[in-house]
């Protein structure tokens, strides 16, 4: 036995374990609907039950026909979108597995900045005056976008996408 292991059998054992891991990993990924997360379907966001209330209220919101989850919560440029998806996916998986997140669920500064930018992306015709004012030399120039202290779409329009 010892001779067999030392003679290269150990590699076979390692390969066997690697195969087991790959199988278990694939099975787990399948059970966790891992591939579904590559899509933009809002249904995917309620794979996890904590998002139910948010999803339900989005279905009744003013934005239900014009914006899905990803339209507000991920950047619109192709690189940013997938980077954002990866970061959010990792953070959400860890949080939901360990159950150590803040309830009620709150948007962090990075996520808030993304949503703010996406408000502007769609509503630029309406808000270009405001956007210009805060980036140019206007009265709001000193107010940074998306920060608590600054001018912010969400400060007033917090519930257009969904309630808590």
């Amino acid at each position: 036995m010892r001779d067999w292991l030392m003679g290269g059998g150990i590699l076979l054992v390692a390969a066997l374990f690697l195969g087991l891991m790959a199988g278990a990993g694939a099975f787990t990924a399948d059970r966790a609907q891992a591939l579904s997360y590559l899509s933009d379907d809002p249904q995917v966001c309620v794979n996890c039950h904590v998002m139910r209330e948010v999803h339900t209220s989005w279905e009744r919101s003013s934005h239900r026909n014009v914006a899905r989850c990803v339209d507000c919560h991920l950047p619109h440029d192709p690189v940013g979108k997938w980077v954002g998806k990866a970061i959010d996916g990792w953070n959400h998986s860890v949080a939901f597995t360990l159950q150590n997140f803040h309830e009620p669920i709150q948007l962090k500064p990075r996520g808030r900045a993304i949503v703010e930018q996406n408000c502007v992306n769609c509503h630029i015709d309406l808000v270009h005056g405001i956007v210009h004012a805060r980036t140019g030399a206007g009265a709001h120039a000193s107010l940074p976008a998306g920060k608590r202290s600054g001018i912010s779409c969400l400060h007033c329009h917090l519930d257009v996408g969904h309630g808590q």
Partner: protein
Amino acid sequence: MNKRWIWIGAAVAVLAALGTFGILALLQNVAQRQAEAREVAFRVVEITEDTYESSVWGRNFPLQYDTFMRTEEYGVETPFGGNVPYEKLDKYPQLRIMWQGFPFELSFREDRGHHWFLFDQRQTRRVQERAQPGSCLHCHSSVVEAYRIAAVQAGLPVEKIHTEEALRKGFDAINAMPWAEADTLVRNPLACIDCHEPQTMRLRITRPSLKDGLVKLANSDDPVPHLPSIERWRAGDRRVPYDANRLASRHEMRSMICAQCHVEYYFDRPPVRTLIFPWSEGLKVEQQLQHYDNYGWRDWTHPRAGSGQMKVQHPEFELWSQGPHANVACADCHMPFERVGAVKITNHHARSPLLNIRQSCQTCHNVAEDELKRRVVTIQTRTAALEKKAKDAVVELIAAIESAHQAGATDEALNEARTLHRSSQFKVDWIFNENSRGFHAPQESARILAEAMNEARKGILSAHKAEAAAKAAGQ
């Protein structure tokens, strides 16, 4: 074979084994979360109108029952409340003077949670040393069963035992009993059946005094935009009296249920001692005072001042009705929804929202916890400061009236000062005994205390005038 490859092979095997272990643990976690997502409500026992023990309901609703049982916990202080049963008469010495001649001069402790309200009532010196009516049990016990039994004993046909008529008849019978006799009829503090209909868990008002109070309120013209079913009833033909169990929305019920007890009330004259909410003019403090004046009511006559007084109970529902939070229900902050697994339940551990800011406040206010707490405590600290000044003014007024009386001032000459004593003490008492220290309606609380201070000071001037006149006449 190369020794290095053997070590690498062994290391890969071990790491892969550990990795597989981790992946399978994750698989189990995923399966667990997915299992949570399925609805969980198991009906393991039949709950009927005759199921009075909450522990039986708890078998069908274990999550809610667990939180409900936590009202047993005490010993937590908040800046102005909490559930440490300290003696308020010691902390606020003005109270012994204001309530002189009334049972509350003996003892008035900070209350503990719902679990304790029958036990603590049996201990208090007010009940042990002074005669009290059975009316107390309306809110200090799970009285539904006792009302029904008393109704049958009073001649109600037994097949009507589950009707509202039974509750009414039992209410009348038990109000008229001495407390010690009525106390033998009750077994439990607050129970599920006090608020829930057993088949559907729908919220239901079981206390006749609130039904009467809401009928009176609906017939008044006090605006109640936060209770739209009353406004709708007023706009209708008003042929059938307002009935909250039929007309109120679930949202309104999540406050009205609490209004069965968390209100100002009085026990009517003997022999019936009916428990009455003074709502015929409306919910505001002046309207309640008007109700008492109209009825010619006083709880007792103050022995030093000679004025007719009311000891205010705990008008939380009424003060909340005047405040910015009247658009949310009592339960939204005091029994907030919380997630357990995938299920959203009402936390039945009713307590101060300051002890659960995340669920109570942050659901609406996306602001840091300590900032929210500071806002609340700021309001409460300001109210407490005004309240102390108002209490001091009332105590001075009592001394001024007594002094004038001893100097020979007539009842007629002291009438104005005594009337001002009645209204100013009622207002201070109203805010002091209300358990939010002004938070339920900050501006209204400050307004009431300002009125109280002004009236007390005017009363002092009036008493001084009467005293001077008496002394001048005597010389």
